[in-house]
């Protein structure tokens, strides 16, 4: 590591810039969350893919399966739930049967309650409260690899026209995506870690890469804190890119100033 550029008395050397960056995230997030005007987030192409796929299921008279991952409360799950709400709305409007497998981890049953409310609301808002059936949101298991075969069993029995996997799906995603493909469903997935993105990019008909999912979730939910999150992430990506470009220019001109700043 290089010599730090500066030190602030009382703060541990080498941790100052990190500390300041975290504080800045706090400030920016709270600022954007408190703004009356909603932050702009662009519509991601994934949403068109979801609409098309649900439309195709409706035409074929086949159900749609949409899961929101098997994690507990997380960054991905929140996004997954927003997308689930949207899919429920589309299904309610077009009278398409929606099946939502839930469970998969020890924490998942907390999220399940939120998911049931969300889907019920979507049906009520569309004026089709009587169409909502909680039996179509079964809790499969609290264990990942009991959830997976049960999910696959569902695919085989119900032969959906579309399978949408959002939220955080881990290694089981490949089993499900392959089986979904085998039963002829359009498979839309979301990758939430590097190797899963690469594998799912092959196994699915459409994949939401990394942050495309939270962006889609924020776009659909119009929730100020989700929108603020995407905004702050973008700002920090600019900071990262800016630091890299400036740093590369500086270091190739013989100055380690940016490296020293980062190490402060």
């Amino acid at each position: 590591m290089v010599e730090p550029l500066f030190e602030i008395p009382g703060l541990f050397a080498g941790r100052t810039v990190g500390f300041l960056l975290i504080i800045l995230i706090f400030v920016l997030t709270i600022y954007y969350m408190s703004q009356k005007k909603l932050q702009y987030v662009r519509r991601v192409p994934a949403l068109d893919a979801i609409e098309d796929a649900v439309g195709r299921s409706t035409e074929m008279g086949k159900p749609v399966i949409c899961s929101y991952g098997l994690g507990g409360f997380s960054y991905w799950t929140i996004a997954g739930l927003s997308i689930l709400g949207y899919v429920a709305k589309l299904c309610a409007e077009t009278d398409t049967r929606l099946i939502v497998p839930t469970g998969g981890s020890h924490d998942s049953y907390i999220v399940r309650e939120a998911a049931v409310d969300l889907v019920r609301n979507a049906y009520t808002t569309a004026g089709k409260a009587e169409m909502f059936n909680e039996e179509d949101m079964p809790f499969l298991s609290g264990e990942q690899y009991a959830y997976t075969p049960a999910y696959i069993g569902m695919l085989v029995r119900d032969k959906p026209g579309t399978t949408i996997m959002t939220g955080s799906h881990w290694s089981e995603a490949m089993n499900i995506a392959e089986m979904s493909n085998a039963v002829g469903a359009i498979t839309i997935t979301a990758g939430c870690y590097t190797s899963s993105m690469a594998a799912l990019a092959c196994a699915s008909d459409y994949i939401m890469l990394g942050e495309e999912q939270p962006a889609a979730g924020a776009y659909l939910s119009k929730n100020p804190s989700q929108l603020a999150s995407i905004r702050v992430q973008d700002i920090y990506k600019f900071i990262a890119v800016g630091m890299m470009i400036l740093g590369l220019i500086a270091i190739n001109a013989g100055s380690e100033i940016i490296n020293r700043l980062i190490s402060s």
Partner: protein
Amino acid sequence: MSEEGFDLFKWMATYDKRWIYVFLFIVVIGPLIRPLGMPISVSGLTKDYYDNINSLTEGDIVFDSWNMEFSGYMELKPGVLATHKIFIEKGVKLCIAFGHFEGVALPPVVFKELKSYMDQYDYKEFEDYIIIGYVIPNEAAVAALAQDFHGVVRVDWKGQPIAGTFLDEIEDAGDFALINDYTTGLATTFQIRHMVLTYGTPMAVNSIGVSVPGHLANLDAGLITSLLSSTRGGAELEYLIGQPGPGLKSMDAFTFGHYMLIVFIIIGNIGHYGWSRRAAHRDRTGIQ
């Protein structure tokens, strides 16, 4: 195009996927029962890992974290055994911790494989290695262990006190000469954050293939010092230390498994261009 040719293309595009499963079983089990001993090459990554481990000296204490389920061990076995052979030969002392509850099934299996080696170098439990058990179930546990080792761990996995052993020299994570991690991705991130970043202890990682891309970024960022990737890396390490084991034995199956996939990809592409693309009914939805 002739009628037969058309059928072949159709088969290439639409064959039952279970044929892939059958072939994969055959190409893997076959060479394991009758090994061919094909040659392999050694990558720069493995050479660096070997140098990293080899730079330890007698009496150095290594935090040996077995962050794997039994399934992870199946993939990392060659690397685990070869690395421990180096440790044993060098007289490095090991503090073994598990990051998954299935870890408790591993020591009898691993030490059974290493028994003759341990006898040869008189390598004994409690004098040379101590198993502290499943002590890193979550991030808080890793951070606490890193900051105050003896405040968290007082007994080994069988309940015997560790006071009076070589672990007396350890106060925090900074006192380990190296963290050696065999990982399926459990507590590794937490160890990087709370042991490496905070105390600057070097860390060598023996990772399953799935996590290799992520660890390459960590390696480039200097967060880990070396990386041994999957079974292939283990086999290369066996080759470097001149001790053929399960890794080199399974390399034939490894080669055939890869070639088989390549053949099926080629078949699929021929089928795609020869049949599916013209039929094109699948792509009509407009979705990739």
